[in-house]
């Protein structure tokens, strides 16, 4: 029993990171109808930026994260601006455009920070908390808390604010959105910016959990993508559920299937998707032009 509980705890913090990555995927899809294939690379950039500011310039961790989020938000704006002529006109080309941007970001990361990575010490130095024989890292709790807050803020933004509603409307019908006065390009830019910010948040948070290297975003990107699909692509609660599910699933298979754990995770994922292709919370929210 203890192993089971400890396994769940181990999987939850990584699950929260996957959830954040999935949120970014789902948000951009929900508001732009676009799968952003550069998302994983933005996670890497965010991780490097946050760790650089934290380690080299010795900024407090929270501040380093905010700077990383701001810079990646800017990157998101640039990507959107470059791809804007394709918006609502050629989705496939836009998709390919994001793949291209992903490659560019990957090359930039290696150019700036080198191909080797760096370890990031935990910003919360206190020892793990012991509860009923289970050990919980304090940093994991921080990650969970921040991920929860970010999710709540995102949900409030989408459901309660004018801009949030407008962002979703654009994806559903960009012509009608224009007719009511929404600036489609600007709305997409903000969506992309928020998506990038979420990616940076995930990357910055995961640094002390793992190891910052150019390959980091690739791994997290794939897991986050799978999480988004599992939860229902475009669904916000789905991203959370999917992220946590994959994190915990990973931990469990690692404990029981040793070297074949990844295969088992993949099989479970495949079965669930075959049974329910739209994902746990799947909904058709986006009409493509």
């Amino acid at each position, binding site marked *: 029993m203890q192993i089971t509980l400890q396994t769940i705890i181990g999987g939850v913090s990584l699950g929260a990171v996957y959830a954040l990555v999935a949120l970014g995927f789902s948000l951009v899809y929900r508001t732009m109808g676009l799968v952003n294939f550069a998302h994983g690379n933005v996670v890497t950039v965010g991780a490097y930026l946050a760790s650089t500011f934290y380690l080299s310039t010795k900024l407090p961790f929270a501040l380093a994260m905010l700077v990383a989020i701001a810079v990646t938000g800017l990157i998101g704006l640039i990507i959107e601006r470059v791809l804007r002529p394709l918006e609502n006109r050629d989705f496939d080309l836009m998709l390919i455009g994001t793949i291209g941007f992903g490659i560019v970001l990957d090359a930039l990361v290696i150019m700036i920070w080198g191909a080797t990575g760096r*370890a990031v010490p935990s910003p919360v130095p206190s020892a793990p908390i012991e509860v009923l024989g289970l050990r919980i890292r304090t940093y994991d709790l921080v990650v969970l808390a921040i991920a929860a807050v970010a999710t709540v803020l995102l949900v409030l933004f989408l459901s309660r604010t004018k801009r949030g509603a407008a962002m979703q409307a654009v994806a559903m019908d960009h012509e009608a959105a224009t007719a009511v006065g929404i600036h489609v390009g600007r709305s997409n830019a903000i969506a992309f910016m928020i998506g990038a910010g979420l990616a940076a948040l995930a990357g910055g948070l995961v640094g002390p959990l793992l190891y910052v290297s150019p390959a980091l975003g690739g791994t997290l990107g794939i897991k986050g993508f799978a999480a988004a699909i599992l939860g229902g692509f475009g669904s916000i609660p789905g991203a959370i559920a999917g992220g946590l599910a994959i994190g915990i699933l990973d931990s469990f298979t*690692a404990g029981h299937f040793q*070297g074949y754990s990844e295969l088992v995770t993949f099989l479970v994922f495949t079965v669930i998707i075959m049974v329910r292709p739209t994902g746990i919370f799947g909904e058709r929210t986006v009409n493509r032009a």
Partner: protein
Amino acid sequence: MFRRRATAISAFAVFSAVSVILAGCSAPGSDDKSSGDSSGPIKIALVDAQSGQLSSLGAWELKGARLAVDEWNAAGGVNGRQIELGVFDDQGDPTTGTNLARKIDSEGYIAMIGTAESAVTIAMAPILKQAEIPNITSGQSPGLVAAGSEFLFLNGPTSTTYDETLAKHIVDKQGTKSIAMITNNGSYGKGEHDAFLKALQSRSVTPVADQVVTTDQKDFSAVLTGIRQKNPKVIFLGAEEVESGLIVKQARDLGITATFAGAAPQGTPVFIDTAGAKNAEGTIVSSPYLGNDISDASKKFATAYKAKFNEEAELHGAKAYDGTQILLAALKTSNVATGKALADAIRATKYQGLLGNFAFDTTGVGISATAIGTIQNGKLVAAAG
């Protein structure tokens, strides 16, 4: 006037195109081993992962090899010819490696340094054997020996040696019998698993746990909690730098106080940083290169390395440095031979390197002993006694 300019431009364009084509057609990369002429630069290929998860190894190897090559070039090269080091990225992938093996053959490289990843080296071995290109690798998998190529040389001990020395220290010297094993399912991890298990079994010791993880695994809670319940004194790690660092970090978070033990990866700064110096304290490391202060030779090497690359030297750089030095020495004694003659020259080279005294046997192994060190205060030092 305009029309004449246009004609001139097109004529120039045609002329350039033809010259380029002609230049490209001349002297194709030969499968004759003397790389075109005997007075041009000597071409040596360095093949390693320069990108991807194992890229730190590739970067270190490149630096070690580069240091050796630049030292020789500054002293006049080999027989007056400069040495040209071509760098190739195998991305840690065996398929890419085999493509590169064909490529360096067709481009006239006469020898190869690398790779640090045994799976890639083993994949490349048959092609290099057929092309008769000697290869000095820093991999340590016993599978390299099993490949049976007279063109393959190891500039470090095999896993068998590492783990035999390690087991000797832990079981025979320290008397510890309660040992758990965590290895990954990559080629290094598998080699380590088998070698250490064999070393334990030859001492009638059965590990209290034998867990295998995947190379990409990020969370080890399940495995570690199980091990914690068995309460071993020592946990053997058979995984690369970053992954083993994560295992140690998570183990300490779970309250595991056992000492960790391992081979080459556990002696690197990357491992110590990822695990956290405090968490890695006391780790037992079996390595032929215990540190930069071990000997005068290593101090000299480390100083030169630091001056050139502004980084601390470590095992993999030292391995590549030794390997390259041996290759260059063999080139000199054989008067820049190639193919089988060069391989024989390498085998005959006796070299006192940073890792120890090299004397290659017929299987290509040059070093058959390692030393034991421990991690103290975030640094690898020789073990007491």
